[in-house]
C-alpha cells in the first residue's frame, strides 16, 4: 500500500506500519506519540489548522487548475530575468535524485559528484569573467551585488564608505542593496545615465576619496552594452574603490571579459543558463580577484587529494563561514542555489563555446532586427539610444500604457517604463513571435 498511514490519515511519507509504531512506542515505554512531546499545556495547540488531507491526484489537479488561471501570453520581458531554451537533457540529468535530494557537501568523501560539478561551475565562471575566484552561488543578482558592496566595506573600511550605483538600477537590486548595507557604514548613492549607459562626466565628478565601490552593468537594465567600462574602471581605481561589473554568462560569452577592463568583482544573474522562466527565481553569480579570496561570501569548492592521493574535491576556506566564525563571518549565507548552479554548468557544457557565442550573437542580432522593424512603424521609435544592444531595448510611443494594454489583449507582454517608453526583450524563446509582435504594435499604435 502506498503510504503506510494513508488509510489512517497519517503522513503518506512516514513508512511505519501500525505494528512497528506500536513496538517502538512500547520500547520507549509510552502508549502514544503525544506522550513524547514535552510542551506545557499553556502553549500546546490542538492540531487543527483546518487544512483537509488530499490525495496526490487531487493536489495535482487542483494546482493544474490554479496555474491555468495564468493568462497565456508571449512574453517579451527581461530587465534582469532572462530565459533561454533549456535543453531537455539538462532537466533530466539535474533531476537525478542523487543531485536533487542531496544536501550541502559536509562529508566530501560521499559527495564527490556534486563537489566536482560545483568546481566545474566555478571554473566556467572564472573563464567567463576573467577573474580567478568564483563562488558556487548566491541567491540572485541582487544578493550578489549587495554582498559585493559588503565585501568592499570589509576590505576598504579605512577609507571610503560610499557605494555608487546607476540611477537606473532595478528596484529589486537597489532595495536589496539598501537592506544589506543598512547595518554597515556604507551609504548608497547613484550616478546618472546618459543614453541608457553611464554618464561618464557625471560619474567622474561623483567619485572621490569617500567612494568604496563603483558598480556598472553591461548590458544595462535596458539592454544597452556599456561602451565605457574601462574608463569607469579607471575612475574607480584612481580612488582605490572596488570596481564591480554586473552581467550574465550569456553576455559574458561574447563581451570583453570584465577582468580585462579592471573589474575587481563580477556579479550578476547566472540563471540565464539552465533556469527556465521561474517567476523571478535566480542564480547569483559572484567572482572576484585573488586579493579578496578570504573575504568571499558563500561557499567555495577546492581541489584536494584523498588518502590514496587521488584527486578529490571539498568545500574549503570554511573558516570564513557562519558556522565557524559566527558574527565575524563574511556573510550569513548558508543554503545557496547549488542545484541551479549545477544546471547552469550543464547548459554551458551542452552549448560549448561555439554554442554560447552563437546564442549571444543572436541576442545582439535579434534585438537589432526587431528594433529596426519597430522603428520603421509610424509613431514608434526604437531603440531610444545610440547603443549596441543585447536582448533588449527601449521603445518610444505616444501612450505606452495604452499600447501595452493593447498588446496584452493580443497576447503579448512587454514592459512599461513610463508614459512614453516601453521595453522589449528578444531571446531564442520568443524570436519566432517577433514578427507577430511588430504587427500587433502596428495595429495598436495606428
Amino acid at each position, binding site marked *: 500500500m502506498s503510504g503506510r498511514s494513508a488509510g489512517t490519515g497519517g503522513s503518506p511519507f*512516514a*513508512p511505519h506500519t501500525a505494528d512497528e509504531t506500536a513496538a517502538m512506542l512500547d520500547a520507549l515505554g509510552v502508549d502514544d*506519540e503525544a506522550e513524547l512531546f514535552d510542551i506545557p499545556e499553556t502553549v500546546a495547540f490542538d492540531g487543527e489548522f483546518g487544512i483537509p488531507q488530499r490525495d496526490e491526484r487531487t493536489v495535482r489537479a487542483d494546482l493544474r487548475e490554479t496555474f491555468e488561471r495564468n493568462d497565456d501570453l508571449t512574453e517579451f520581458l527581461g530587465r534582469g530575468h532572462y530565459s533561454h531554451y533549456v535543453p531537455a537533457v539538462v532537466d533530466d540529468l539535474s533531476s537525478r535524485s542523487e543531485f536533487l535530494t542531496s544536501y550541502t557537501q559536509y562529508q566530501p568523501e560521499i559527495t564527490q559528484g*556534486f563537489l566536482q560539478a560545483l568546481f*566545474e561551475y566555478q571554473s566556467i565562471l572564472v573563464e567567463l569573467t576573467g577573474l580567478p575566484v568564483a563562488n558556487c552561488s548566491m541567491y540572485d543578482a541582487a544578493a550578489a551585488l549587495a554582498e559585493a558592496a559588503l565585501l568592499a566595506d570589509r576590505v576598504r573600511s579605512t577609507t571610503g564608505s560610499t557605494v555608487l550605483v546607476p540611477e537606473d538600477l532595478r528596484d529589486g537590486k537597489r532595495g536589496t542593496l539598501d537592506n544589506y548595507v543598512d547595518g554597515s557604514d556604507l551609504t548608497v548613492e547613484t550616478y546618472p545615465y546618459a543614453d541608457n549607459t553611464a554618464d561618464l562626466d557625471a560619474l567622474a565628478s561623483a567619485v572621490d576619496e569617500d567612494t568604496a565601490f563603483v558598480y556598472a552593468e553591461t548590458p544595462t537594465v535596458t539592454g544597452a552594452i556599456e561602451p565605457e567600462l574601462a574608463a569607469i574602471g579607471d575612475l574607480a581605481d584612481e580612488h582605490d574603490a572596488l570596481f564591480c561589473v554586473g552581467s550574465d554568462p550569456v553576455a559574458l560569452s561574447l*563581451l570583453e571579459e570584465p577582468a580585462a577592463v579592471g573589474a575587481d568583482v563580477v556579479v550578476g544573474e547566472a540563471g540565464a543558463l539552465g533556469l527556465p522562466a521561474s517567476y523571478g527565481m535566480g542564480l547569483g553569480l559572484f567572482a572576484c580577484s585573488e586579493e579578496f579570496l578570504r573575504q568571499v561570501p558563500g561557499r567555495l569548492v577546492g581541489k584536494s587529494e584523498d*588518502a590514496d592521493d587521488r584527486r578529490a574535491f571539498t568545500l574549503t576556506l570554511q573558516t570564513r563561514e*557562519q558556522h565557524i566564525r559566527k558574527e565575524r563571518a563574511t556573510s550569513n549565507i548558508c543554503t545557496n542555489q547549488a542545484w541551479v548552479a549545477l544546471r547552469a554548468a550543464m547548459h554551458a557544457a551542452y552549448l560549448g563555446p561555439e554554442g554560447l557565442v552563437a546564442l549571444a550573437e543572436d541576442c545582439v542580432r535579434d534585438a537589432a532586427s526587431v528594433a529596426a522593424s519597430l522603428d520603421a512603424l509610424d509613431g514608434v521609435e526604437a531603440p531610444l539610444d545610440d547603443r549596441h544592444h543585447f536582448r533588449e531595448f527601449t521603445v518610444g510611443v505616444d501612450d505606452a500604457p495604452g499600447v501595452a494594454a493593447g498588446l496584452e489583449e493580443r497576447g503579448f507582454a512587454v514592459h512599461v517604463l513610463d508614459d512614453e517608453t516601453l521595453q522589449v526583450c528578444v531571446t531564442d524563446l520568443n524570436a519566432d513571435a517577433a514578427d507577430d509582435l511588430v504587427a500587433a504594435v502596428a495595429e495598436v499604435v495606428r
Partner: protein
Amino acid sequence: MNYDQARYGDETRNESLLSEKDSTEVDPGEGSALPDDLTRDSLELPGLSEPELARHYTRLSQMNWSVEAGPYPLGSCTMKYNPSFADAVAADPNAAVHPDRDPETVQGNLELLHGLQEYLATIGGMDAVTLQPPAGAAGEFTGIAVAKAYHEHHGNDKSEVIIPASAHGTNFATAAMAGYDVVELPSGEDGRVDVEALEAAVSEDTAALMLTNPNTVGLFERDITEIAEMVHDAGGLLYYDGANLNALLGRARPGDMGFDIMHYNVHKTFATPHGGGGPGAGPVGVVDELAAFLPRPRVRTVGEAGSAGDTAAAADGGALAGHDHGHANDATADDEYELFDPEHSIGKVHGFSGNWLVLIRAYAYIRRLGDEGLLDASAKATLNANYLASLLDMEVPYGPFHHEFAATAGDRDAADVAKGMLDYGVHPPTTKWPEMVPEAMLTEPTEVENRRSLENLANAFNEAFADSDEELHAAPTRTASRRVDQTSAARTPRLSWHALGTDE
C-alpha cells in the same frame, strides 16, 4: 548494511573534469555584429556532445549521496524524503512566467502565493507572512531587519540581539549583518535557556532574542512564556528560528508561545529537495504590529485592503503577545488577487519574488498532508528520534527529545566516528556541534525512516563507535574518495580548473 559507492576514473583521479574531456578556444569577436573593442578575444570552454554530457553527469550523480539513496540524518537540517508529485507540480509550464507580468495576468501564481501565506500564518500562529526571502538565513535577515525597522519607527534605541550559545551560526551572522551587537547566552545545566542568565542579559538595549524551540539538542524550552514576558517587558521582540519546526507541526505554534517574528525553512519542514545546497526558501511570519514593515510587495485578495499590514494599526489590534490567528482559508478558487506594498515596508530582500519553484512544492506538500499528515509528521519525527537515541551505545545527554538529539562520542573524535559510518550505507549526523555537547553527533532521523531503517542506522553508529582509532582513521574505504585532505585544500586554494597544474 555495507555500502559501495560508484567510483569512476583511474588511480590518480575520479571522473575526468569537463575540461579534461574537451576544451575548445574560440574568438568570439570574429564575425560578430559588435565592434572589436566590445568583444573578447578568446573564450575557452568545454562543449560535450549530448551522450558524453549524459555520461559525465550520470557518473557524477552516482558519486553523490542523497536522501533517496538512504538515511541522511544531519541534525538541524531536516533532510526528509522529497515526494515526487511536488516536483511534477513545480514543473507545470503554466507556472513558468516572468516576474514582471501584470498581476492581473498571473492570477494563478498569486492564488498559490496567497494560499501559502495563509497556510504558513496558520501553522505558525502568525498574522502576516512574506514569501520573498530565498533561504532560511535570508529569512533571519529579513526578520531582524523588520524588527530593526519597527524599533526605529517607534523611536526605540536598541543595540543588542541576544542569542543562546547553542543557536545556529546563521543567527549570529545575521544579527551582526544587521548592525547589532550579539550577546551570547550560555545554556543552562538542563540544556535549555538559563532563565537567570537571560534575566541578566536582557536590558533596554535588547532589540530581540533569537530562539530555536525545540532547541538544537531537541529540547523544548518549557519556560517560553516566562522568557517571552521577560523580553517583551524590556521592549524587545522574540524571534523564532524555524529550523526545527518539523518537531512542532500541529503541537504548538510560535505565535502562541509569544514569538513576534519567525522564519520557516519550507525546504526542510515542508520537504522540498535541497539540491546539494539549495535553493531553499525562508518565508517570514510576523504578528500584526510588525506586518506593515514586511518586504514589498505582498499578495492579498482584492477587497482585503486595510487588514494585513498595509496600515500602521492593523484591524484586529495585534498586541505583541496573545493574538489568536484563525484557521486557514482553504478555499481560494474564485478570489481575485493583487499586489500591495506594506505601509512601512523595509523594501526588498530579493531581486524579484523569491524562490518560486520551492514555494510551489511547499504549498503542494501542505495540501497533500493536511492537518492529520502534518500532525503525524511531527509524531513520527519525535518517535524516531527517541527510538534511535535509545538504541545507541553512545551516551546521549539530556532528553527526552523532540526531533533530534546530540549523542556524544566521549573520548572518541566525533568526526572520525562519522567517517567510519560512511561505509555503512548511511550518511553520518552533524558532528562537533552544538558545542554544549562534547564531541557531539547531532542526529535528526526525521519521520521518513521506519523501525528497520533506524535499527540499521543505530548499527552503523554502534559499529563505527566500536572501531579502533586506527580503523576510523583509515575510513572511509567504500566511498568514491577516501579521506579527503581538507587542510591542503585550504592552505593552497585551487578553486577552478585554471588553477590546476598541467600534470592534472
